[in-house]
């Protein structure tokens, strides 16, 4: 059968069609990821806590608001390169950045963080002030800082916050807490203790005190206007980017983990990784297995015996314990997992291919060719391969999910490659940090489901290829 016929037979079965659709999807998503994601996504983004600092931690996917209703609060990010207003102020210049946040009155934001990147000044250090005007008309100053002045020997322009931004997490900042206490004392006449504000700064900012219940706040819904005021010494001074994050309790399409990582990104990156593992392993294991099987079946005698004995022993090595051991000793490298899977994966095919070749060898086709004087090797590869190719192809597909599942298992045991995020690793993180036990289902369900669907894809394809392998099925249908 040529590849066209194989495809045709495959697509004539239900499971084959479903498998083909799944496979196409997997490949398309993988291609998309390969184009859009940097290859060093693992170390530079995924495993870099700084890149997730502004995300809410362990937030459920945004669409869970469908049934969480008002209980959930969305994630808001305000960014601006240009000030909303710029006013001269004597020999100085005052720039304001205004962001309006609508608070519905449910949960207070889980996070409130201000970041400023790339500040340059020529003479006078920039002064930054963050204020919020509440729906009750009161204004609360949350933060104020003066950018560090010139160091000794430094020449203008003075560059600040170039590599690392100025970042304040107002929801847990001690200075911000003090300002909130001051605000409550002066404007509401309520004295808040330090403990009462512990971890509740946002509640205080977005609420009013409840009498008789110190440390409890009544949510105050309405529009909150955040204003960042930057007072600069010259109009040539630069403020690159201002960012205010109001952390939600839900985030993105797939939610976040306890480090605030956007799970959707990690899951996406897992697509090409899983496919590569599966396909690389199965292709090479199949090549080795089939070649040895054909060699063994065709060359009777010593070669056959040696290959047979060795295959028999090698195929019986219990895979997972050995894999665990070798990865543990030799290092947690993805390529090593693939190499080991290839190394231990070929014998099954060798045994089957050998017996098929033995059957075919007694067939007339090869005998006839032999009589015509074709060289041994050519007979072997031309005729035998032609006969068993569909079978080998089906075996290759069948072998693919095994490799994916094995990598996932290793990752789950904590032996994943730290530089390449995989579905198994995401699951392992969730399991090890106890996500299962506190009900973070969005962290453990999707990666597992993706593993299952990917494995199923190849199982379905194998089922669809049955008629190719087993001609009797083809005729009877």
């Amino acid at each position: 059968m040529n590849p066209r016929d194989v495809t045709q037979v495959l697509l004539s079965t239900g499971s084959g069609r479903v498998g083909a659709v799944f496979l196409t999807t997997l490949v398309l998503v993988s291609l998309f990821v390969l184009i859009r994601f940097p290859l060093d996504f693992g170390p530079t983004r995924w495993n870099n806590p700084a890149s997730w600092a502004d995300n809410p931690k362990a937030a459920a996917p945004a669409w869970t608001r469908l049934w969480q209703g008002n209980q959930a609060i969305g994630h808001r990010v305000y960014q601006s390169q240009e000030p909303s207003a710029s006013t001269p102020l004597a020999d100085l210049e005052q720039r304001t950045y205004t962001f309006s946040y609508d608070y519905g009155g449910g949960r207070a934001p889980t996070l409130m963080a201000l970041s400023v990147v790339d500040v340059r000044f020529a003479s006078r250090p920039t002064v930054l002030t963050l204020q919020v005007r509440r729906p009750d008309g009161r204004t609360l100053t949350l933060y104020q800082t003066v950018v560090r002045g010139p160091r000794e020997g430094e020449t203008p322009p003075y560059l600040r916050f170039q590599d690392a931004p100025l970042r304040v997490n107002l929801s847990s900042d001690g200075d911000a807490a003090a300002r909130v206490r001051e605000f409550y004392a002066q404007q509401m006449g309520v004295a808040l203790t330090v403990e009462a504000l512990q971890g509740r700064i946002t509640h205080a900012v977005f609420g009013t005190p409840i009498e008789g219940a110190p440390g409890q706040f009544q949510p105050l819904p309405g529009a909150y206007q955040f204003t960042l005021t930057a007072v600069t010494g010259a109009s040539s001074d630069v403020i690159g980017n201002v960012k205010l994050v109001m952390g939600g309790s839900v985030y993105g399409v797939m939610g976040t983990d306890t480090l605030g990582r956007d799970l959707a990104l990690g899951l996406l990156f897992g697509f090409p990784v899983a496919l590569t593992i599966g396909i690389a392993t199965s292709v090479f294991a199949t090549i080795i297995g089939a070649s040895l099987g054909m060699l063994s079946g065709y060359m009777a005698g010593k070669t056959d015996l040696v290959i047979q004995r060795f295959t028999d022993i090698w195929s019986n090595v219990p895979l997972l314990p050995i894999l665990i051991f070798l990865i543990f000793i030799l290092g947690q490298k993805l390529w090593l997992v693939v190499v080991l899977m290839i190394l231990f994966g070929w014998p099954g095919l060798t045994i089957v291919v050998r017996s098929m070749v033995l059957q075919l060898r007694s067939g007339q086709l090869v005998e006839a060719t032999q009589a015509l004087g074709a060289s041994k090797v050519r007979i072997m590869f031309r005729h035998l391969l032609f006969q068993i190719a569909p079978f080998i192809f089906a075996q290759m597909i069948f072998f693919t999910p095994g490799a994916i599942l094995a990598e996932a298992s290793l990752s789950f045991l904590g032996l994943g490659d730290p530089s390449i995020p995989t579905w198994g690793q995401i699951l392992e993180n969730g399991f090890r940090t106890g996500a299962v036990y506190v009900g973070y289902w969005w962290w453990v369900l999707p990666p597992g489901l993706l593993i299952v669907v990917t494995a199923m894809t190849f199982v379905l394809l194998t089922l669809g290829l049955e008629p190719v392998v087993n001609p009797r099925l083809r005729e009877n249908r």
Partner: protein
Amino acid sequence: MSLIWTLAIRGLTLLGVLFVVLIMLVVALGATGFSDRMLRAIIGEEVRGLRTSLAQTIRDPDQLEATLEARRRDLESFYGLERPWYSRLPSMVLRVVKLDLGSARTLRSFDGSSRVTDLVLERLPYTMMLITTASVITAVLGLWAGVKLATRAGTALDRLSSYLSAVSYAVPAWWAGILLILLLAFRLHLLPAGGLYSTPPPEGGLARFLDLLWHAVLPIFTLVAVSLGAWVYTVRTMVLNTAQEFFVTVARAKGLPEGRVMRRYILRVASPPIVTNLVLGLAGSLGGAILTETVFNWPGMGRLFYEAIITADENLVVALTFMFTLLYVAARFVLEVLYVALDPRIRYGSRT
């Protein structure tokens, strides 16, 4: 004669497996310098012990140090540390076989011992309990359902079950376990999420035993769920294949009742290939046990394996790798004997 011969060949192959694994273990350990480190740790421990006991008798600190140093050198040459690692292969193999690998880094057995041997042997029964129970349940259910489906081949139920068995192949045991914990333990509060006993464990032998069983339900269920599909499918296929054999028609011609035909002419004949499949699935169920124990915090060798990895405890990892291989080889051999006992074509004379 040929019976012994057949079994001997299978036995030798399995010994070969054990040998290959051992060689892989010690070569990997030796070539990466792990074995040196392990030995130095053992020696260091011994010298430390000696120091405390000698400190009482030898008062002079210099003399004490000198004595200890001499002892250390003795030990190093005893373990062959001054020679290259490959010249120590045989003794290393021996130590792995005896699980004489010193002590675990942080893990302790229930009664406080840190010796690798104690730890591993203490956990072994729990793993055996899990694997054997799950295997028996899988086998019984698989046989029953496989035969049922074979008699209903081609029906919607049959097709559905072939898809289900494909799913069961694609679902990793540990993920299934996590789902069950999420659903049954945390949503519905039906079963415990893990561990051996409730805290505090109930008093009294029977109550404790029942509590243990209660905690074993989910792990066993998980193991059964992920291997049952393959079993059912195999049994069904083998039964269907055998049912088409000519001698089955002859049996019917002989006027034998259907039940007897099924038992003696179909199941009995299909059992050797079913056992073969069981053999092939064995490695898988062993791996499944490692992962399932991890998920359910079941203190068997599998969970120990996980803990050893997490705490980077080389000695334990080596010991457990060996133990799992040993367990596998032993179980394989039992099944091989069973296979030979079931199939007279192998029992007497050559395979045809």
